[in-house]
């Protein structure tokens, strides 16, 4: 499809953002306790769309919140009546600024599972009604390795509108989806059309960006090797310094495990769907008392294999998108990149 592109300068971009914030429900990366997190914003000053990677949280919470109401109920001797929860605050039409490409990729990966045999309507609605505006990264951070995980120029359809800092000091805004297309057209005021001319600049920008990566892996190879690694002893030693704190899962843009819990007071109850993590000892505890993953390394293995093998097998995409958020947030600085490369390479030994 033909991609509409506009060009502008820094001031123009700011104006563009401000216009959007005025016109739409807008979310952006807001600084909280020294880390960036996506929050609703009412003026550009509140947020920084260009905020540096890595961020604490991805945009995931705006589609799959840490805790969401599933239903309400009232239990009396007359019986138990269910009632719908109040309007889903995330379902409305909205724009998200400053989405990193990895975040958007994360959502793309999640779509696979959410639109699988059971369609999660809430999630679908949230996705449909959201426009993702994504400034392209110029510089990789310490733990980034997204380029190794099939992120390249061609698969930019994860974002609706990409913002690219051209090497010619111009800033290009490019629609990458139909949603983006229409949106961009609607909000193009003050932007100069730059169809076609952007491609070369983008390529340059991408190359410099790709060059800035310290972490690189041959994904195909890793993936193939890992498949045979279920019983690899490496799994037992590598994560021994892990404290099973679950942080990695909670900050991961693609982790989607959840638990269901009720909170009942008097005769009224609410049912919630909240984050959970496979690193949690009790995650696999069965009613009978059996726990297939009682020890840390098994949970770790599950996590690594799920990220790099199982999901791919099932949905054709890799679950890990190489954003490095887990490594950044890890209290003991364990790097998933290091672990999987170690495991994969351990085969030759």
């Amino acid at each position: 499809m033909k991609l509409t592109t506009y060009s502008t300068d820094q001031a123009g971009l700011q104006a563009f953002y401000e216009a959007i914030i005025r016109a739409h429900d807008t979310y952006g990366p807001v600084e909280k306790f020294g880390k960036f997190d996506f929050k609703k914003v009412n003026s550009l000053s509140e947020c920084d769309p260009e905020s540096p990677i890595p961020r604490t949280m991805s945009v995931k919470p705006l589609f799959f919140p840490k805790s969401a109401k599933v239903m309400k109920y009232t239990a009396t001797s007359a019986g138990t009546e269910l009632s719908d929860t109040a309007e889903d605050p995330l379902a409305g039409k909205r724009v998200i600024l400053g989405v990193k490409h990895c975040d958007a990729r994360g959502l793309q990966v999640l779509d696979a599972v959410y639109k699988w045999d059971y369609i999660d309507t809430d999630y679908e609605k949230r996705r449909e009604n959201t426009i993702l505006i994504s400034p392209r990264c110029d510089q990789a951070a310490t733990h980034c390795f997204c380029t190794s995980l099939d992120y390249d120029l061609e698969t930019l359809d994860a974002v609706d509108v990409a913002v690219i800092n051209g090497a010619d000091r111009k800033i290009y805004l490019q629609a990458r989806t139909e949603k983006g297309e229409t949106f961009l057209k609607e909000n193009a005021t003050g932007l100069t059309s730059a169809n076609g001319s952007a491609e070369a600049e983008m390529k340059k920008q991408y190359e410099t960006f790709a060059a800035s990566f310290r972490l690189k892996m041959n994904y195909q190879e890793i993936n193939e090797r890992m498949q045979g690694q279920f019983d690899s002893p490496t799994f037992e030693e590598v994560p021994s310094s892990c404290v099973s704190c679950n942080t990695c899962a909670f900050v991961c843009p693609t982790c989607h495990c959840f638990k269901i819990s009720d909170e009942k007071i008097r005769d009224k109850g609410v049912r919630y769907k909240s984050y959970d993590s496979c690193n949690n000892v009790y995650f696999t505890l069965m009613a009978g008392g059996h726990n297939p993953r009682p020890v840390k390394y098994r949970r770790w293995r599950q996590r690594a294999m799920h990220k790099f093998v199982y999901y791919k097998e099932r949905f054709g995409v890799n679950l890990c998108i190489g954003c490095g958020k887990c490594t950044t947030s890890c209290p003991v600085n364990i790097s998933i990149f290091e672990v999987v490369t170690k495991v994969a390479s351990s085969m030759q030994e």
Partner: protein
Amino acid sequence: MDYTKQIQDIAGRLFSEGKIDIFIGYRNTGFDENQVPVLIHQYKDVDQLLFTDKSVFNLANYLKYEHTRNKRVGLIVKGCDSRALNLMLTESQVKRENLYIIGIACEGVVNETGEKAQNCVECMMPDAVVYDELLGSATGKREYQVNADIRELDEKTLTDRVEYFEEIFENCIRCNACRHSCPLCYCAKCCIDQETATLFHGANTTSSAFHALMTWSLHLAGRCVDCRNCEKACPIHLPLHLLHKLNEKVIYENFQEHLAGMTEGDRGAFYKYSLSDPDDFIL
């Protein structure tokens, strides 16, 4: 503060003498200047070890996991770490005879931005209190001082504090990283994961976060050694130390106790009482 050499020597010695099965220390991540705690099982790995002012994480935490239980372990402890260890000994979570402890007379560690961490600036007992050998020269106990942030918050009005803390509890995602990284949270199953809690606080809502964090801080009242593992672990960077420091302040002002785990056998303020405890707040 750099004891890399000494620690490598000691660890090497311990392995070659067959005194230990595991040595818990720090190594470089290999990606940045941060360090990863590492569990070493054999002599040949000791050269990974290092110890600098970036060796932040409290290693006593690793003594609560199955793979160190009832093994002979050598580990490095700074002042605060050693007091946590002392409490674990008192609460019979570890056996002293299984441990070879390298105590550090700590000069303070640095935070992400490279300056001395707050808890180190305010540290009241930088030297290890339990050890088999001590590295560095002990500087001894210091005067109790109220935490800067606490002092600041105390001056705020009630409603300001309400806003401040609501921010905190709303942002908590309940990953429980704070709990898992705390060496003194060694319970087989945390009360927060038990039915009595999950039936009413199972979701990751703000109210549940409040409940969880309050319970947690009260369970650590009079025990917290201010190593700030929890705060470092928190992905949202919540200022969790506030809760602990407040408890510490209250306990110090009312029961004249602080510095948990200074001596083995001291379980902390909640597990003893004095007839002369303050009574004026009771009708």
